[in-house]
């Protein structure tokens, strides 16, 4: 699919910058006439991706890089949001899937970000290494199972 419209955004790695990022992503989602509920899901996913970067990346450049793109074959079909940092990366093999029954008893109740992102977006890809992490999230304009109906 081709990129029909794109927006680049660079934010400081600081608390509440996630709200700035999600507002921009939601503005683009609304521009492509995504339904309000799906826009809300994009909002939440972008917030979580940004919070992960703000809290864990330790990026030396102190910035969060956001790329928002409307993609499709001639007409808007999906919104793609990439949240990238130039931080220390992480080992995906060491990620533990959070479970509520364990979290209720655990001292540390956090660690839900990726699970929430994967639950709210249609496609999620993570690229991570020594030069940083990119969370690439895609939300189709229309809910996949209702697209043909």
């Amino acid at each position, binding site marked *: 699919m081709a990129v029909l419209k794109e927006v680049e955004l660079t934010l400081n790695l600081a608390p509440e910058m996630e709200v700035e990022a999600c507002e921009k992503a939601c503005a683009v989602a609304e521009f492509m006439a995504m339904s309000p509920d799906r826009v*809300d899901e994009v909002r939440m996913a972008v917030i979580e991706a940004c919070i992960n970067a703000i809290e864990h990346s330790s990026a030396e450049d102190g910035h969060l890089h956001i790329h928002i793109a409307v993609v499709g074959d001639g007409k808007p079909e999906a919104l793609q949001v990439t949240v990238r940092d130039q931080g220390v990366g992480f080992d995906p093999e060491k990620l533990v899937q959070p479970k*509520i029954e364990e979290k209720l008893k655990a001292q540390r*109740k956090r660690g*839900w970000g990726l*699970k*929430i992102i994967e*639950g*709210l977006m249609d496609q999620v890809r993570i690229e991570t290494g020594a030069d940083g992490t990119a969370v690439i999230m895609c939300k189709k304009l229309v809910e996949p199972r209702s697209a043909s109906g």
Partner: protein
Amino acid sequence: MTESLKLTVDKRDGVAVVYTDGYINNQGGEEIAKVAYDLLDEGYRALLLNLAGTKIVNSIGISILIEIIEKMIEVEGKLAFCNLTPTIDKTFHIMGLAQYTSIFEDETEAVTHLTG
């Protein structure tokens, strides 16, 4: 910058309703926890969080809500949520919170459950 979360408490016979207005992030979650624990200290064992005024939450804020759920289980109290946006409702289900707390569409239904 976003405005901080505002909380209003309505103490009724047997149930306290906490209304949230704004973003439930780490700070907002801590404020809700403080109010909830104060209500437990006052003897309330049935709490309702009405999120009608909250359009955004994050996982840090929800993690603090999990602490409140844990506390309510410990004291054998009841905690319920109502007026969630579809996305917050979906997020609570993704995380599995719905297994350990009750979620209602509106306040009347929730209060009936908590006081019943």
